[in-house]
């Protein structure tokens, strides 16, 4: 057996170094054509029924006739996919967004690297998928410093509404739960209503999506604030509200 001494090693390494140069040989394979891509902007607008949602000063009336104001309306949108007319799918990578009412920049999402073509549908999850709830420390939209994470019982708060009724009842709806019977994750695909988003290298379509807070408190279950005004753990109440808000998003229009 050859004894590996440092001298031997060095000689060997210099020999090897001699054979290696930093110049790359010309690539014999034809370069794969880079797919032509563009961007899409998703523009979320928070509403209550037909009214624009205004934090703190706006007052709104629920299906159960409770009058209340809203101080916070934050939610996660994740795993965004666009469906093309040929049924191929664009899936945004690292697709996690925290949308916060009162923070206009957070309501405008730019999807990049979208292959050019005509898109007929969209799909996304309300909340953060199970995997990221069990994968340790995250950053960006998923940073626990964002106030959308339970520290005592690990898991993301998928969506959050806070406010108060005219009668002075504090409202706190922190909706979460990512596993088993307590799962509140909703994958939704609001209809384009026969409209299309045409992606090219130069034109950036805007898809305008409304988030209707009124939907939180009706269909299938009307929420009566005298009965249900605080939900801060996973469970039946959280599921009830998530079932309600699953249809809060609608595509209002697409500007190509």
């Amino acid at each position, binding site marked *: 057996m050859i004894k590996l001494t440092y001298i031997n090693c060095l000689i060997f*390494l210099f020999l090897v170094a001699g054979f290696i140069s930093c110049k790359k040989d010309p690539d014999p394979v034809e370069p794969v054509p880079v797919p032509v891509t563009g961007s899409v902007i998703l523009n979320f607008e928070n509403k209550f029924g037909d009214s624009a949602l205004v934090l703190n000063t706006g007052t709104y009336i629920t299906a159960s006739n409770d009058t209340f104001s809203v101080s916070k309306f934050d939610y996660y949108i994740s795993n965004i996919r666009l469906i093309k007319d040929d049924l191929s799918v664009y899936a945004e990578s690292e697709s996690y967004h925290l949308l916060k009412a009162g923070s206009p920049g957070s309501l405008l999402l730019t999807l990049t690297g979208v292959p050019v073509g005509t898109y007929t549908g969209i799909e996304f999850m309300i909340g953060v998928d199970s995997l990221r709830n069990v994968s340790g*420390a*995250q950053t960006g939209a998923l940073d626990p410093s964002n106030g959308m994470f339970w520290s005592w019982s690990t898991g993301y708060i998928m969506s959050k509404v806070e406010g108060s009724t005219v009668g002075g009842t504090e409202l706190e709806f922190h909706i979460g739960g990512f596993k088993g019977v307590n799962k509140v994750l909703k994958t939704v695909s609001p209809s384009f209503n026969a409209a299309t988003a045409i992606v090219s290298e130069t034109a950036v379509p805007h898809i305008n999506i409304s988030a209707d807070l009124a939907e939180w408190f009706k269909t299938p279950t009307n929420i009566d604030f005298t009965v249900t005004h605080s939900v801060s753990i996973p469970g039946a109440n959280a599921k009830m509200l998530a079932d309600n808000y699953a249809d809060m998003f609608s595509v209002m229009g697409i500007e190509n």
Partner: protein
Amino acid sequence: MIQKMKLYGWLPVFFSLLLFSSCERDPVVKEELPADNIYFVVPQGWPTPHYDFTGNALTKEGFVLGRRLFYDTKLSKDNTISCGSCHQQFAAFAHLDHKVSHGIYGLLGIRNAPPIFNLNWHSEFMWDGGINHIEVQPLAPITNPVEMDEDMAVVVSKLQGDATYPKMFKDAFDTDIITSQLTFKAMAQFMGMLISDKSKYDLYTRGEATFTASELNGLSLFQQKCNTCHTAPLFTNLQYMNNGLDTVFADAGRGKITMMAADSGTFKVPSLRNVALSPPYMHDGRFNTLEQVLEHYVHGVKNSATLSTELTTPIVLSSGEKADIITFLKTLTDNTFIKDSRFKDPFTP
């Protein structure tokens, strides 16, 4: 997984890799080189760890940063409490003589600060298992109003403004932009490296030490009466059990997390490694001595709907047998661990 390698033996390999990769940057090389004596080794005969630093490459710089964070009072709102305040090395990182955790402003927590070691084998943390990953565990005490009462965003901004930390993050993670994620990853490197596997019991199982007659008898009794829940080599089965402390539960324990009646009054079975170092005992610290604990199992177990089936028939032990079990439990004390200079508070000379 990084295995133990002799640093010098790998130098030629390292230089060869450098040569082969000289045309482009290859950060992988740095990560694969074991940094001094900071490497993760699964002790012989132990199960596969749940966490092996995948996605959080262990480096000496990351470990040293995590250690400083662990002992730094900056992580609390008024800069008075560190993780190390309630997790003391000499007590195997438990809080000696404190029934429940003593936090900020002199406030008391509701549970006994558990010892910290061999965490990489745990998939859930805290007495109630509410936390599902070692990296997010520190968030709970940092933000708890009766422990450190600090906002994680404020912690990050304090660290960013500190004279020392940006450079340490740069050394550990190649960026001086501090985030909560990197803070937690560094802390996981320190906490995950707290491995206790050098007790007299460990030496005995490796044939490097002999047991006295009393220790041997204690071991034999332990295997018959205790090992079902306090299963070797971790000395916990990592399950949640009601060990008959109460008939009515002041603290629902695991039930608070799962919201299931079947879990009410159950708590995670604690490891018995270093148990002689870390009194008081139980989730609320109600017992001060091991004698009291054994007495509970012999005469004190109270019935309730969720009582562990292992305890429905009383454990029978003579006083001599109890003494032998305690003698055996003391062989689980790991003096190497509690004196390991790698784990010492860097703020005290």
